[in-house]
C-alpha cells in the first residue's frame, strides 16, 4: 500500500490548507500567550517556563505522531521535508536570533501574532525583520562561503547517532518529560537567578 500522506494538493486546496493551518498556528501561539514579549522573555529570566513547555510539548506531539504514523505506513516519512543542516551558519544564526529575541522581545512567528492583536512593539519588530533580511541579502554574497559551510544535508539526529527514527523520537519524548518535570519543580525556585533577577518577584 502506498502511504496516504503527505497529500499532493491542487493549487487552490494548497492555498486554503496553508491559510487554515496558519490560522491554527496563530491561534495557539496567541492562546499560549506568545503574543506578549513580557511572557516570552520571562523564560530567559527563569520566571516563566511557558516557552519551553509550549515548544517542547508541540515538538513531542508532532514528533511522536509522525514517527507513529510513518511506522503504521500512513505517512511516507521520506516525503517529509527535513531541513538541511549547515552546522556553522546555523550555530551563528541561532546566536543572532537568540540575541535579537532577547533584545526585541519576539521571534518572527510570535511577532506576527503579537502584531495582529495590536502590540506596537511587535510591529516594529516585524519591520526590523524585513530590514534584517534585506541586509542579509545584501551581504550574503560576500559571506556566501560561510553561509554554506558545514553542510550535512537533510541529516536527522537518529541518522547521525545511527539509531532508528522511532527510538530517537521516543528518546526526545523522555528528555522532554524530564525537562517538564524539572520546570514544574523549579518555577520561581532557582535561588541563583532569584538573587540576580529577584527584584520583580
Amino acid at each position, binding site marked *: 500500500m502506498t502511504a496516504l500522506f503527505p497529500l499532493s494538493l491542487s493549487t487552490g486546496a*494548497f492555498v486554503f490548507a496553508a491559510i487554515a493551518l496558519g490560522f491554527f498556528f496563530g491561534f495557539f501561539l496567541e492562546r499560549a500567550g506568545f503574543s506578549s514579549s513580557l511572557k516570552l522573555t520571562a523564560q530567559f529570566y527563569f520566571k516563566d517556563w511557558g516557552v519551553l513547555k509550549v515548544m517542547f510539548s508541540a515538538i513531542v506531539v508532532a514528533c511522536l505522531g509522525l514517527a507513529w504514523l510513518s511506522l503504521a505506513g500512513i505517512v511516507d516519512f521520506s516525503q*517529509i*521535508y527535513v531541513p*538541511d543542516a549547515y552546522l556553522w551558519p546555523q550555530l551563528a544564526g541561532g546566536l543572532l536570533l537568540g540575541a535579537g529575541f532577547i533584545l526585541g522581545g519576539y521571534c518572527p512567528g510570535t511577532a506576527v501574532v503579537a502584531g495582529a492583536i495590536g502590540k506596537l512593539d511587535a510591529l516594529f519588530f516585524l519591520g526590523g525583520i524585513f530590514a534584517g533580511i534585506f541586509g542579509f541579502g545584501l551581504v550574503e554574497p560576500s559571506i556566501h562561503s560561510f553561509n*554554506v559551510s558545514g553542510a550535512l544535508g537533510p541529516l536527522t539526529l537518529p541518522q547521525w547517532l545511527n539509531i532508528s527514527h522511532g527510538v530517537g523520537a521516543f528518546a526526545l519524548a523522555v528528555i522532554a518529560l524530564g525537562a517538564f518535570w524539572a520546570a514544574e519543580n523549579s518555577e520561581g525556585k532557582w535561588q541563583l537567578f532569584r538573587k540576580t533577577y529577584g527584584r520583580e518577584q
Partner: protein
Amino acid sequence: MPHGLSPGGVSRRDWFRATAATAAATSAATAATPGQRAGKPALQVATNCEMCFWRCGALAKIQDGRVARIEGNPQHPLTLGRLCARGNAGHQTLYDPDRLKRPQLRTGARGEGRFQEVSWDQALDWFAARLTELKNKYGPESVAYLPHGASSGFFGTVMKAFGTPNSAEPAFAQCRGPREVGYALTFGRGVASPEPLDLANARAVVLIGSHIGENVFTSQVTQFSEGLARGAKLIVVDPRFSTAAAKADHWLPIRPGTDIALLLAWINVILSEELEDKEYLAKYAQGLDDLRAHVKPFTPEWASAETELPAGLIRDSARMMAAAKPAVVVHPGRHVTWYGDDTQRSRAMAILTALLGAWGRQGGILLPTTIKRGSFKTPPFPESKRGRADGAGTTYPLASEELGVSNGLIEATLTAKPYPIKGWVVYGQNVLESIPQRERTLSAIRLLDLLVVVDILPVEQTLYADLILPEATYLERYDAPHIVETAARPFISVRQPAVPPMYDSRPGWWIAKAMAARLGLEAWLPWKNPDEHLAKLIEPMGISLGELKARGAVAFEGRPTIEQRIEADGPLFPTESGKIELSSKLLKEIGHDAIPVYRPPADPPPGWFRLLYGRAPVHSFARTENNALLNGLMSENTVWMNDHSARDLGLAAGQRIVLQNADGNESLPISVQPTAAIRKDCVYMVHGFGQQAPGLHKANARGASDNALISRVAIDPIMGSTGMRVNFVRVKPEVQS
C-alpha cells in the same frame, strides 16, 4: 509545487522522487517492461495460449502478483501479437471461482456429486494402487487414456510406459481424422495442425462448411482477411449464410450431405473445360485418366438436382477457382466428421486441390519443414500382445494409432471386446460433450472400475469420477513447447507459468512425474524439471533457452513450396506410388472406392430438421462458457431456424423451445433465432452450451447442447470416425396444461 524547496538546493522530497524514479527505471530495464495501468511497472511473461489448441503467442501482464491482462506476443511468428476474444480472456479462467481446487475422492454414488477432499499424496497413492490392481487383474491394457491439450502428453508417456496402447483423443474420430486420412491417401501426408494454408497469398479460397470468423484461429483469420483485402475470390459452400458466406463472391447454400456431388461436378467442369494445372499433374500425379472417366457423368446439371444449387453457379464457381490456380486454398476443413463418408469427401477435396496444382504452392497448401529435436534416452515402451482395443488398424483399417478412435474405446468398454476396459483416465477433455452418443458414454462409465478425471473445472464428467485431480491452468504451468512444422516459417513456442498455481492445483508435468515415481516408471521421464526437458528438446535447434523463454517463440527458415524443397526434406509425395494418388490403390485394396463416389443422404421427414452445429468465435468447445468475460459476451446459444419455417411453426424470435430428436432425446430450452440465413431443411446451433454441471455457476444449464441431441452417428468405415450430422430434430410440441 515549489513549496518545500530550500534555497539553493533540491528538496528532500524531490531528491527522493528522483532516486525512486531511477530505481524504478533500473528494475524496469532488467525485469519488467513499461507498465499496464497507471504507469505502474508490470512484469510480463511470454507464453502461449491454451484457450483453444491453436496456442497463439501471448504475453501475460502481471500486476501485484496477478495476471491483470493478456495481450498477444508480437514476437510469435504465426500470430504476430494478435489474440482472439478467448485469448484476451484467459486470466478469467485462471481466476474462475468455480475451479477445481483440491484433489477429491468420490464418496457418493457416481453422478451424485459427493466427494471428499484429500491431499495430493493420498490422491496419487490411491490412484497408483487402483492402476496396479487393474494391471494385476485385467492387464495394463484395461486402462484407457482419453487426453486433450498441451499438458496431457506427459501423462500419456506414463500411460504408455504403464503398458497400455489404448489412448484416444477426440481430435481424430470426432474431428479432423477423415481429413488426415483422406489427404494422406492422396498426397502421402495429412494436413496436420495448424493447417499450413497460405490464405494471405491465395487468389481464391474455397470453404466447404468451414466457417472462418465464427471459428476463430487467430492467424487463420488474419491471413484470410489479408487475402480478401488483397482481392482473393471467395467461394463458400454452406447451408447457412455464415460470416464467411457474407464475404463470398459465390455462396452455395448446399443441401446438407451432398458435398461429394458438388465436388465431383466441380472436378467434372475443371477436367471437361481443361482448366486443370496440366504441367503439375503430369509431373506429380497418377490416375488422372481414371478420374476423368469417373467424373464424366457428374455434370453440374446432374449435381444441381442433388445439391439444390443452380448448375450455372456450380460451373461459375469452378471456373473462378480454376482461374486463380495454383494459388487456391480449398480449405480442408477441421471438424469434418459429418456424414460417415467423410474420408471420401476429404479425398475429393484433396483431388480438387491437386487438379488446381495448389499442394505445395504459394497461395495454396504449404509443405511442412522438419525441426530437429533433441530427446532423452528412454527405454522402449512395453509392447502389448493384445493390441489396441479401439479398432485402429483393424476394424478401422486406416485409423491413426497415434490419436486413436475414442468411440472405439467406448465400444470396447461396453462390449468388453476384444478385451475388457476397466479404467479410464480422462485428461483435459470433456467426454460427455466431445464424444457423441452421451448415453453410450454414460453406460460405459457405469461399467468402469476406475474413472480418474484431470481437469480445471468441475465439468459434468467430474460428477462420475472416482478421483478428481485439479490441474493448474495454462497460465500457471510449464508444458511441452509447441513445435510447429506446418507453417511457412516453422517455429517453437514455449508455455511457461505467469503465476504460481492457485489453490492446491498442480501442473500436468508434476502430476506425471509424481505418478511415474509411484508406478516405478521414472525412466521414461528422466528429467528433473521442465527446464531440463525443454533444454534437451531444443539442443539441436541452435537457440538458447534464455532467449526462447524471453521471446516466447523462435522461428526457423522454412521450405514450404515444391520449388524450395531440398533432398533432406524427403520425398515430395510419400505415397506408395511416390505421386499424388488421384485414384487410390490402397483404398481399392481394402475394399473401398478408389475415387470418391456420391451416395445421396436421407432427407429429414416433413416437420423435422437436420441438426447442424458449429462454433462461436468467443468460445472453445464446452470449455470456456464459464469464463466470466466470455460468458458476458455470449452466455447461451440460440437455434437458427429459417424464418419461413419458424413462421409456419408459429415461433417468434427469442421464444424458448425444446428440441427433440428421432430417439426422443430432448434438449434444454433454447431461444429461437428465425433468420433468412439458413436453409429450410436444417437448424443450427453453437456447440458447447447446455452443460449439466452444477459446479459451473455461469455455464450450467445455459442454452442447449447439440451433443445431447446427437444420439445417432454414421461411422466412417475407413477410419472409424463418427459422422454427427445425421440427426433429425423437431420442435417439441408444447404440452398444454
